[in-house]
């Protein structure tokens, strides 16, 4: 692997700018003549916009413009789109209402924009926004799933009767029902998957500028996928043709899914920059982020699992209501369907699965992909069900899982996915060993003598990553292909620029991608630069989400490197008069095997560019590109075990230990992989015990700041014990699987399984805050 190659825990190349304050995030950028945008947002969850009076605001010196949704319509700027078509089980397409960037007539959630003030300073824009007088007529509100589907409920969109977007299903209902009917035991569960707010630490931001002579726009924005943003802004929102719009996503301070989507604010900033003919900057404050960043999760589910007399699972039936909020966000429709129900087989051999998902509109912030996106919901449901079943069937929870593990691959589940590789016994065994599972009973007894309730909980997750084969997602309704592109530019001196369509917003691509190059060509990572996040530099790319950068993005780089290597070998064989097949790469030199003849890589590059002596017919230069379209999803999997101690007097949960044993295939940089797992675990644990998004009945977001929404802090979390088991992914060149979402997918079930084990009741909802835990203990007593 070399000291900088694949498998080395190299310190990150990008860190120096971040630890010295030299990072360049969107809000750090100032353009000449820049104005500032402040949105006027609805204080009501459902209301008619009767009038907007901006006359007082326009009188303030330094206010440049006040623009409204009506002017957007007049300028034929499009509504926001949902890019994944899902059909109901009766075959009808999903039923969507229009999602305007600024509401011209009707607002449907608190925080929806109705107008924007453009002014010379941020403070002035804020002052002026308060002077914009909007007259609303309040309408009745549905603030949660149950209210939305009640008979006679207020209707959000005339296009979606009953507030139902779709009633979708996957699997064979008749076969599942038949298996349930003949089961020796059936275990049922009802649960909520709580709504979460992603809360990347960098709030969303956009700076738009317009060059009237060239009729060209530039947008700096906090995006995980700037090319997709450009595509959508061009093709659907009618901002400008793609060749007249450059989108740059510079340093981006975390995404977790929330920066995939193309939001109203960047679209309005672009449009406004042309209207006022000056650059326009908008940066969210944290409460705007709470109100307008797409939220995650928010399911209500009922599930039944059927077992035969030997405790083998024979069927699983699930019914889920998913809350979409007031509008369909960009990829929202796919999250509770193709990213959720397709993972309901988990690590288990389940012959019959049927899942019905009803997507619902409510007067709340739109919901879309958040770290894990559908897969945490599937994993939580399945692993709560397995733990509950083990307790009801009075078998050891590890034993029940082992009995049902899939052990041969490839394995076709009844819910689309074909698992390619895995060893679920190995990861469970590694986790049990790491936490001394065998010694738990003694630890529980000891804690009991000290008046503490101790519990242990397992979670064996699987996820589908590397999103995804374009043909497969196209057949399921996706509006885009999900390949990735790469270009390898070798400079005449032998240094290299890699252009990638993946986008790094914390993942460390500038290091790991360079490691792949170093591993292949033997040159130091300091001579490899990774270029990403700019549509003028990188031709096209699909961006980073769904743990896809290694499995798809690096695979594209490997394909391009193969082409560079092949051309370089031709040049070397010509110069050294040897057969191409005899050329090997060692320590940055191209050598003729078995001889002392060699050319340094830098000399090969120089030869390619001087072109004085190239093989006949060869073009000068050393630059190759590739597109990589995966053949399958990848399937990271693992086992998490959590041990907690609950104080029966206060309901407070303390972590005794948390162990994770993951199988991500080959690791490029184990240090970075572990960092990804730590962060995912924190978000999964946060969901389990801290993070609750609360709307009141009138649709007000009660938890709209860090003072009200409980983010995990250092003192809330334990140190983690991580380990890895390895089965290589057979579907991509390096055998990598992806590690970005695992922690968030597997952790919450382990925590709740541990807490329910400690307190002796299954009835606890997330977040299992001290008051809920205390109430559950006392309801049980």
């Amino acid at each position: 692997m070399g000291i900088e190659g694949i498998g080395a825990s190299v310190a990150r190349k990008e860190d120096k700018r971040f630890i010295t304050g030299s990072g360049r995030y969107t809000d750090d950028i100032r353009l000449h003549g820049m104005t500032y945008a402040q949105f006027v947002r609805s204080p009501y969850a459902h209301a008619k916009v009767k009038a907007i009076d901006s006359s007082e605001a326009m009188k303030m010196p330094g206010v440049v413009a006040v623009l409204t949704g009506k002017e957007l319509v007049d300028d034929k700027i499009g509504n926001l789109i949902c890019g994944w078509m899902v059909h109901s089980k009766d075959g009808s397409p999903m039923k969507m209402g229009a999602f305007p960037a600024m509401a011209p007539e009707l607002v449907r959630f608190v925080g929806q924009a109705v107008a924007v003030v453009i002014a010379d300073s941020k403070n002035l824009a804020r002052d002026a926004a308060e002077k914009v007088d909007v007259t609303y007529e309040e309408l009745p509100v549905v603030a949660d799933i149950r209210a939305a589907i009640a008979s006679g409920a207020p209707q959000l969109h005339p296009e979606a009767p009953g507030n139902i977007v779709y009633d979708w299903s996957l699997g064979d209902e008749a076969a599942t029902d038949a298996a349930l009917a003949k089961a020796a035991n059936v275990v049922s569960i009802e649960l909520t998957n709580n709504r979460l707010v992603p809360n990347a630490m960098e709030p969303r931001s956009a700076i738009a500028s317009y060059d009237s002579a060239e009729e060209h726009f530039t947008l700096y924005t906090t995006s995980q996928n700037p090319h997709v943003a450009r595509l959508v802004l061009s093709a659907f929102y009618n901002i400008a043709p793609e060749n007249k719009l450059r989108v740059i996503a510079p340093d981006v301070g975390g995404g977790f899914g929330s920066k995939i989507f193309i939001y109203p604010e960047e679209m309005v900033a672009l449009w406004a920059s042309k209207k006022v003919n000056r650059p326009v900057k908008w940066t969210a404050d944290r409460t705007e982020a709470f109100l307008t960043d797409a939220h995650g999760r928010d399911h209500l589910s009922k599930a039944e699992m059927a077992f035969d007399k030997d405790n083998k699972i024979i069927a699983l039936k699930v019914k889920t209501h998913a809350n979409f909020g007031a509008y369909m966000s960009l990829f929202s429709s796919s999250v509770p369907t193709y990213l959720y129900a397709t993972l309901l087989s988990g690590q288990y051999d389940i012959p019959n699965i049927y899942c019905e998902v009803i997507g619902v509109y409510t007067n709340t912030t739109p919901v879309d992909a958040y770290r894990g996106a559908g897969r945490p919901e599937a994993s939580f449901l399945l692993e709560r069900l397995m733990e509950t079943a083990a307790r009801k069937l009075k078998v050891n929870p590890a034993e029940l899982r082992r009995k049902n593990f899939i052990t041969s691959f490839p394995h076709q589940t009844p819910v689309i996915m074909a698992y390619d590789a895995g060893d679920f016994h190995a990861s469970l065994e590694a986790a049990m060993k790491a936490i001394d599972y065998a010694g738990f009973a003694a630890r529980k007894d000891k804690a009991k003598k000290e008046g503490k309730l101790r519990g242990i909980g397992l979670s064996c997750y699987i996820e589908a990553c590397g999103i995804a084969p374009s043909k497969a997602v196209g057949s399921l309704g996706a509006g885009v292909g999900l390949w990735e592109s790469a270009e390898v530019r070798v400079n005449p001196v032998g240094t290299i620029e890699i252009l990638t369509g993946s986008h790094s917003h914390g993942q460390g691509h500038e290091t790991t991608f360079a490691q792949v190059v170093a591993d292949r060509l033997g040159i130091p990572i300091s001579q490899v630069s990774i270029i990403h996040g700019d549509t003028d530099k990188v031709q096209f790319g699909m961006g980073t989400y769904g743990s896809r950068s290694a499995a798809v993005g690096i695979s594209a780089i490997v394909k391009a490197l193969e082409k560079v290597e092949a051309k370089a070998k031709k040049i070397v064989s010509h110069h050294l008069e040897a057969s191409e097949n005899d050329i090997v790469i060692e320590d940055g030199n191209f050598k003729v095997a078995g001889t002392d003849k060699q050319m340094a890589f830098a000399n090969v590059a120089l030869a390619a560019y001087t072109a004085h002596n190239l093989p006949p017919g060869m073009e000068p230069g050393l630059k190759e590109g590739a597109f990589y379209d995966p053949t399958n999803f990848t399937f990271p999997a693992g086992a998490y075990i959590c041990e907690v101690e609950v104080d029966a007097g206060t309901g407070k949960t303390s972590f005794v230990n948390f162990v994770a044993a993951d199988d991500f295939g080959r690791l490029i940089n184990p240090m970075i992989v572990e960092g990804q797992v730590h962060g995912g675990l924190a978000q999964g644990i946060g969901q389990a015990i801290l993070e609750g998004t609360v709307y009141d009945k009138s649709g007000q977001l009660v938890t709209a700041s860090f003072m009200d929404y409980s983010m995990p802090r250092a003192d809330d979390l334990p140190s983690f014990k991580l380990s890895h088991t390895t089965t290589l992914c057979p579907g991509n060149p390096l055998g990598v699987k992806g590690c970005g979402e695992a922690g968030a997918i597997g952790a919450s079930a382990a925590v709740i399984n541990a807490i329910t084990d400690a307190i002796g009741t299954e009835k606890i909802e997330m977040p299992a805050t001290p008051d809920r835990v205390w109430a559950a203990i006392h309801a049980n007593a």
Partner: protein
Amino acid sequence: MPAVKLMVNGKPASGDVEDRTLLVQFLRDHLGLTGTHVGCDTSQCGACVVHIDGRAVKSCTVLVGQAAGANVTTIEGIARGDELHPMQAAFRDNHGLQCGFCTPGMIMSAIDIVNRHGGSVDEATVRHELEGNICRCTGYHNIVRSVLDAAGRMKVAQAAE
């Protein structure tokens, strides 16, 4: 607009500002020191932590006028030329950052923690003292390791001086 004068990273800084100008706005918008970040506006997240006269303060909660005459140190001012502060080096060596947005505030808070508790500070104290700094990427695991590592380095450096 009133004039304000203070020292920032050892150099005099001044400007004519509105009374309501926050220290963080002055640093970012007037001085172009954009290493100090704004993550929440409510003094919760700590991305804006700087040192005022050697103590960690959230610069989103201080008017620049309140810092008049003070010595302010930001993330840009803690390295000695190319030599990183031990806390900066420890964050890099222990992978104590991912997206980097909370990092400047984390480092400034962490230096203050070690200054107050000394080089033998323990994990529980570090976790408790970091409650005013939120990170969404790392799960704090490697941040805590970084601070403990730097504490040891700072102890050695102090002993050497």
